[in-house]
Every structure is written in structure tokens, then in C-alpha cells.
């Protein structure tokens, strides 16, 4: 049991090292990568079932007792996120087999991909603020290199914005961690939750919470700190875009939800109200940005921003139902958004462009692919019976319950605009007649590697939509653990105080 908690961090590391040892043999690296991703998925699901059955689990690294050492802790929310990271890692590892070019493969794509997964899993599992910073850095370091790997001109341009903004955010994060330590004398999250209650200057705690809001807000790409995302996500190869879109901003969202449910809950009227306003603005700017775009991946990138708004809307409302809605939304969104990026990659392989103006007629030639696009696209817009519908419904219901009509109106309107955007891609790329003659240049096995993850994720989307109840129960219990952090604190500090 206590081994299970560390394995989601160790497996990607071992995989990365194995791939590094096999630097010259690309074939071996590919197999290592798939094997490691499968193992990670398996362990992540085991962890999820274990936490569901036995409750919150914690392990003290090196046996140093809790407030002093580093705690690795998994509550349901963490376990869900790790499981999602496992699914995404698996899907992208398989997709990469056919979509990554030989040059990038021989310059360390696979080791980097798994280091990225390690950073993401580490961030989800740690119970210590400074350690969270370290995992953020591990993740960012890998993402910086993945973003520029290949060295195309557009990549460099995107990377400069991405790196600069993320370094800013890291600096703010580190400064905030320093102040937090000076104020409370501890960085263990569970211990902080107890100590922050006794700090004499509530104003100082609120200021500090704003520092964290900005630091994590940049990483999560919320309004007005989002512009690095649409500037960079369309530049790397699709597999990289897809894993970035699925996981990176969500680590920011995870960190926001974690600190604003566990640590900064003393002045909910101010902090969470502000988060709610930010959520609304994020939704609107993201979706309006998407309307103006005409490039497949740029549209999708702007939609990431607007969807982030929904995720933190639940945090801003701050009721058990709203948080459950947020968590459900994250589950739904990661799967759907990664899938859309994967589809865009297939379209690019067939037609050689991402520009909607040049695309067209795909439905006629590949109706199957069109349907595979339609499932995540409609789910993103929130049409029943797909997963996005339940996610939005929960959030809207939570908003109505506490009479937050403005945010509900925004959420619904943005849903409509999202549908408009998705229909735009549909009509331009799939429906409109075109002289373009898409040529499949791949053999059967390569196509299978591309389609398998897409079909898998599409099936997951449909499954979550049709059988929403177990997923909702999962989100609800995870939200319950966030709202009542006593169990979390007890699990971490057990036997030490």
C-alpha cells in the first residue's frame, strides 16, 4: 500500500532512464515508452480503487515525521488526477509511435515525455508546498524542451512567450512559498491548514493567497494571464500539444483547488468571490478568442482557456456540489480536449494543413473520422448525452442553488459559443465541398496507432456520458474530502502530534 503511492512517480522515472540508456536504439525506446505508460496507467487505476476503498493515504518519505519531512499523500482528488494522467500518458505514448518524426525521437522525445509525466504525477501527489514547487519545475523543464524539440521557427517564437511567463510564475510561486514559511513556520500542507488558522494578521494571509492565485493562475491560464497558451500550444507536434493540453494547465487548476480548499478558506467572501469573477471572464475571453481564429489547433487552444473558466467556477462557488462539478469537469475536459488535439493531428496528416480555409470535404472521404471528431466536439460544447453535458449541468445547478445567476448565464452563453466554434470546424474541415484530395500515406499499422487512442478516448467520453452516475459519485466524494479537510489532515499528521 505505501509502495503504491510512490509508484506513479517512480515508474515514469524508470521508463525515462531506460529510454535514456537506449539512446541509440529508437525502436527500444518506443517499446519502453509504451510499456512504461501502460504500467503507469495500471498503477494509477490501482491507486484510485485503493483510495476509494480505504480512504486517504499518506506516506512519509524517508520516515521523517510529517511536518518536517516530505509527505506523499493521495486523497480521491489526487488519485483521480493521477489516473487521468495515466490515461493521457497511455494514449499519447501510443499516438506518438506513428506521429513522432525520427529526428525528435532520436533527440530524447521519449525520456522527456516520461519525465513530464513524472512531474505531473509528483505535483498531484505531494503534500508539501515546497515539494509542489519542485514538481512544477520538473514538469516545466521537460515541457520547455518538448516545446522546442525540433527547433522550428514557430516553435521558438511560441517557446519564448511560454518560458518567460512560466518563469515569472515560478518566481512568484517561490516568493509566496518563502513568505508562507516565514509566516507559519511550516510548509506541510496539512500542517499549514492548522497553523494558518492561528495567524494574527488575516489581511496578510489574504495578500499571500493572492500571490498564489497569480502564480497558479498563470500556469492554469486564467484571465488575464492566459495569453502564453494560445501563443504556444499550436507550435509543437500534435502529440506534444495533446499532452500539454490535457495535463499542464490542469496541474495549475489542481494547485488552485488544493490551496483554496485546504489553506486559504478564512475569507471566502473575498477570495472565492474574486475567483468566481475571474472564472467568468476566463470563459468569455477564451471563447471569444476562439471565434476569431481560423486555425484548427489555435481554436482548440483558446477553448482550453475558456474551459479552465468552468473548472474554477466550481471553486469560486465553493459548495460541495460545485466542487464536485469542477472535478467532474476536469475528468471530462482532459479526455475530450486531448482527443480533439489527436484528431487535429490526423486531419493534418491527411491534408497537410491546419488552416480551416484550406481544409474541407473530409466527411465525404472519411466519415468515420468525422464522427470521431464530432463526439469530443459536441461533448466539449455540452450536448447531451455526452460527458460535457453532465459536467455543465452540475455546475449550473450548483450556481442556481446559491443564486449566482450571473455566472450561470455566462456559463450557458459560453456553452452556446463553444458549440458555434465546434460547428465552425465541422463545416469548414469536414462538411464544405473541397477540391482537396486527402491522401492516406500510412500503412495499416501506423493508422491503427493513430486511431486506437482516439477511439479509446471517444469511447470514454461516451461512457462517462451514458453511465455518469459512478463518475459523479467519485467526484462527489472527492469534493466532500476537499470541503471537509479533517480526514486529509489526520491522514498526514497521524501519529505525529
Amino acid at each position, binding site marked *: 500500500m505505501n*509502495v503504491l503511492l510512490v509508484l506513479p512517480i517512480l515508474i515514469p*522515472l*524508470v521508463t525515462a*532512464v531506460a529510454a*535514456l540508456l537506449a*539512446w541509440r536504439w529508437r525502436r527500444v525506446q518506443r517499446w519502453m515508452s509504451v510499456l512504461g505508460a501502460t504500467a503507469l496507467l495500471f498503477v494509477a487505476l490501482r491507486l484510485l480503487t485503493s483510495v476509494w476503498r480505504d480512504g486517504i493515504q499518506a*506516506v*512519509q*518519505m*524517508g520516515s521523517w515525521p510529517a511536518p518536517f519531512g516530505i509527505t506523499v499523500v493521495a486523497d480521491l482528488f489526487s488519485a483521480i488526477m493521477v489516473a487521468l494522467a495515466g490515461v493521457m500518458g497511455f494514449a499519447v505514448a501510443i499516438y506518438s509511435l506513428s506521429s513522432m518524426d525520427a529526428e525528435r525521437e532520436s533527440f530524447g522525445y521519449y525520456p522527456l515525455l516520461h519525465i513530464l509525466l513524472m512531474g505531473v504525477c509528483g505535483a498531484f501527489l505531494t503534500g508539501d508546498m515546497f515539494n509542489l514547487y519542485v514538481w512544477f519545475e520538473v514538469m516545466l523543464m521537460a515541457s520547455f524542451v518538448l516545446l522546442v524539440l525540433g527547433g522550428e521557427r514557430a516553435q521558438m517564437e511560441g517557446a519564448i512567450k511560454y518560458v518567460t511567463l512560466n518563469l515569472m510564475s515560478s518566481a512568484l510561486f517561490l516568493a509566496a512559498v518563502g513568505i508562507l514559511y516565514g509566516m507559519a513556520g511550516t510548509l506541510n500542507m496539512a500542517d499549514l491548514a492548522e497553523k494558518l488558522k492561528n495567524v494574527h494578521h488575516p489581511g496578510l494571509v489574504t495578500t499571500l493567497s493572492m500571490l498564489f492565485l497569480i502564480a497558479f493562475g498563470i500556469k492554469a491560464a486564467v484571465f488575464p494571464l492566459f495569453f502564453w497558451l494560445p501563443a504556444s500550444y499550436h507550435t509543437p507536434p500534435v502529440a506534444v500539444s495533446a499532452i500539454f493540453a490535457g495535463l499542464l494547465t490542469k496541474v495549475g487548476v489542481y494547485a488552485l483547488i488544493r490551496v483554496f480548499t485546504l489553506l486559504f478558506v478564512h475569507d471566502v467572501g473575498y477570495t472565492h468571490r474574486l475567483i468566481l469573477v475571474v472564472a467568468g471572464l476566463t470563459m468569455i475571453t477564451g471563447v471569444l478568442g476562439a471565434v476569431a481564429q481560423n486555425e484548427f489547433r489555435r481554436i482548440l487552444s483558446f477553448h482550453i482557456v475558456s474551459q479552465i473558466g468552468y473548472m474554477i467556477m466550481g471553486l469560486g462557488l465553493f459548495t460541495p456540489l460545485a466542487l464536485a462539478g469542477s472535478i467532474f469537469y476536469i475528468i471530462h475536459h482532459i479526455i475530450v480536449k486531448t482527443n480533439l488535439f489527436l484528431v487535429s493531428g490526423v486531419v493534418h496528416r491527411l491534408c497537410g494543413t491546419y488552416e480551416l480555409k484550406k481544409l474541407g470535404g473530409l466527411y465525404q472521404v472519411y466519415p468515420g473520422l468525422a464522427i470521431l471528431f464530432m463526439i469530443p466536439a459536441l461533448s466539449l460544447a455540452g450536448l447531451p448525452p455526452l460527458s460535457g453535458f453532465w459536467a455543465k449541468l452540475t455546475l449550473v445547478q450548483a450556481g442556481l442553488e446559491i443564486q449566482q445567476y450571473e455566472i450561470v448565464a455566462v456559463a450557458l452563453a459560453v456553452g452556446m459559443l463553444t458549440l458555434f466554434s465546434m460547428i465552425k470546424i465541422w463545416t469548414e474541415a469536414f462538411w464544405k465541398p473541397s477540391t482537396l484530395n486527402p491522401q492516406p500515406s500510412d500503412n495499416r499499422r501506423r493508422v491503427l496507432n493513430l486511431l486506437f487512442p482516439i477511439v479509446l478516448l471517444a469511447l470514454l467520453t461516451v461512457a462517462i456520458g451514458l453511465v455518469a452516475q459512478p463518475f459523479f459519485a467519485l467526484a462527489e466524494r472527492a469534493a466532500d474530502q476537499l470541503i471537509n479537510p479533517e480526514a486529509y489532515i489526520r491522514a498526514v499528521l497521524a501519529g505525529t502530534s
Partner: protein
Amino acid sequence: MSLILRTATRFLLPLLLLFSLFLLLRGHNSPGGGFVGGLVAAAAFALYALAFDVAAARQLLRIDPRQLIAVGLLVALASGMVAWLAREPFMTGQWSYITVLGIGPVPLGTPLIFDLGVYLVVVGVMLTIILSLAEE
């Protein structure tokens, strides 16, 4: 490349490597450790590359510095996993006390193995960077 530098390097190289090992072993309770030790060892090879040439330095090292990174990571990882054999959390230090030739008891533990891993990683990273840049 000057004769003086080449001759001096022949003497300095073993000294630097010995010193790096000294730093590594001393590191547990006093200033030193795998990181500094690794830097000094990498500096020794970098000096060799300056005095002779990069190909000679690679030959002296025998192993691709990239492999050193991987091996170092594995060593560090393994040192953490030893704790599982004792059914303790990851990274818990495991110690044994050995008396050799009447000296001791000398405490030997997994933190030293971890430090060795760090040492190898640092040597690997530094030499990957330095030798690649020198070849440009």
C-alpha cells in the same frame, strides 16, 4: 596546446579525481557530497579535453556521458528502494556498521549510495554539456 598544460594535466587528473572521491565520501556529515564531487570530477575531464582534445577525453572516459546520467539515476533510485526490503517508506536510510582492520565501527548506509548516484548524474550532465559544446 601547450606542453606545460599537457604535462601538468597528466599529474592533475588523478589528483582531481581522488579529491572528487574524497569530497563524495566526506559529504555525509561535512561540507562536500555527490554534487561537488561530481563537479570536480567533471572539471578533471574538462581539463583533459582542453589540454588534449575532446576525442581523447571521450576515450579516457570510455563510457558515453549520457549513459552516466542514466546509470546515476538508477543508482540513486535503487538506494531509495532498499528501504522497501525492510518494509519501510521509500528513501528511509538503511545502515550497517562494519569494522575493517580494527578501524570502526564504520557506518555505511544508503544515503552514500544515493550520493554516488548524484555524483554520476552530475559528471554525466556536465560532461554531456561541456563535451558537446567543445565539439561545436
